[in-house]
């Protein structure tokens, strides 16, 4: 091997080792299971300025679209640091590791808003799935469940599936067959937030198939809604994003 070629190989491996998110379409989780990397996208505020992790209010539902223009995600600064390296399982039994929240307090998390049960999702006209802050009550957390009257859960109001955002949206109750897909975030030294990929089984394919008429109405068509987000993802509060927030 020529010296120049050798240096190219070493350099390439080094880049990959430093920033794994730079490899698109490759695996990212500890063992590479159920991870898809997409364009690295910076989260911005409504004016297009970089969104700073320290500027997020705790326990407020924020929304950004990623990895597709029409797939909404929830961003939450949780009240406490999340658990680390949570073992999760997909509907078909594949296990994967959710590494935990980002930010100085390791409390910032993001999940795809598409409920894997019947594809309920955050959309512009009304929203049945959202994060319920600490102390909030939901019918999804029945008296026998540890989350009863405690909040700090994500609830899908359609059929009352409950997810634990501290543990990678693990299912706590209800008919959901698997966790929400996680959006893998990076927190940089300048306090900016970046989305780099999706961990866990996503429901994008089924979503685009099922909501064609809605996507036409809200994004001008399925093709436009399917476009991958590039460079920036505008992040707003759920109250700004949707006309009606419905919780049970």
């Amino acid at each position, binding site marked *: 091997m020529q010296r120049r070629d050798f240096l190219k190989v070493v350099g390439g491996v080094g880049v990959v080792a430093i920033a794994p998110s730079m490899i698109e379409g490759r695996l990212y989780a500890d063992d590479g299971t159920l991870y898809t990397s997409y364009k690295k996208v910076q989260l911005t505020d409504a004016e297009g300025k970089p969104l700073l992790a320290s500027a997020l209010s705790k326990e407020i539902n924020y929304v950004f679209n990623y990895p597709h223009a029409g797939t909404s995600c929830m961003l939450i600064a949780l009240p406490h640091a999340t658990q680390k390296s949570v073992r999760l399982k997909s509907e078909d039994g594949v296990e994967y590791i959710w590494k935990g929240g980002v930010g100085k307090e390791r409390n910032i998390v993001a999940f795809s808003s598409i409920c894997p049960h019947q594809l309920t999702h955050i959309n512009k006209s009304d929203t*049945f799935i959202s994060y319920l802050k600490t102390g909030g009550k939901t019918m999804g957390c029945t008296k026998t469940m540890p989350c009863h009257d405690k909040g700090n859960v994500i609830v899908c109001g*359609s*059929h009352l599936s409950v997810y634990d955002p501290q543990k990678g949206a693990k299912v706590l109750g209800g008919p959901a067959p698997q966790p929400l897909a996680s959006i893998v975030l990076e927190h940089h030294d300048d306090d900016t937030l970046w989305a780099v990929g999706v961990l866990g089984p996503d429901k994008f394919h089924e979503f685009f198939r099922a909501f064609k*008429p809605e996507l036409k109405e809200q994004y001008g068509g399925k093709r436009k809604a399917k476009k991958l987000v590039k460079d920036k993802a505008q992040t707003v509060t759920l109250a700004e994003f949707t006309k*009606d927030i419905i919780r049970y």
Partner: protein
Amino acid sequence: MKLLLSMILFFIASSSLVAADKLKQSELASDMRTMLKAVNQIQTAGFYYNKEGMKDGVNKLKNAIGSLTTTDARSYLPENEAYADKFAQKRAKMITMYADDMIVSLNNENIDDAIEDYSQIIRQCTSCHSRIRTNAWKLK
């Protein structure tokens, strides 16, 4: 005397309101039966690729579901499920949306999309029935 008259008027008004609610429920039952027939028609016509039969079924479905999208869902839901009015109304709106899209798909000869719309209509029906009706049955 005035008090007696107002009591009588109040009684008549409240009785007519109860009657209206009961009427709405019977109308709902009738609409539901019509919708079931319409859905059966879409499916049967679909098996034979009878486009006009499918369209006719979709139109019947849309006519029957009209009352669900315009009426306050709390008036027809079981008392213990009345809180879920927005959920029920959303399902009705989604059915209308897929029905509209199905007509477009059929007009464009896009049978795959039409079948997808049909399966989504069924999904909305079962979504609502699994939540609202199952709970109502559990209490019986």
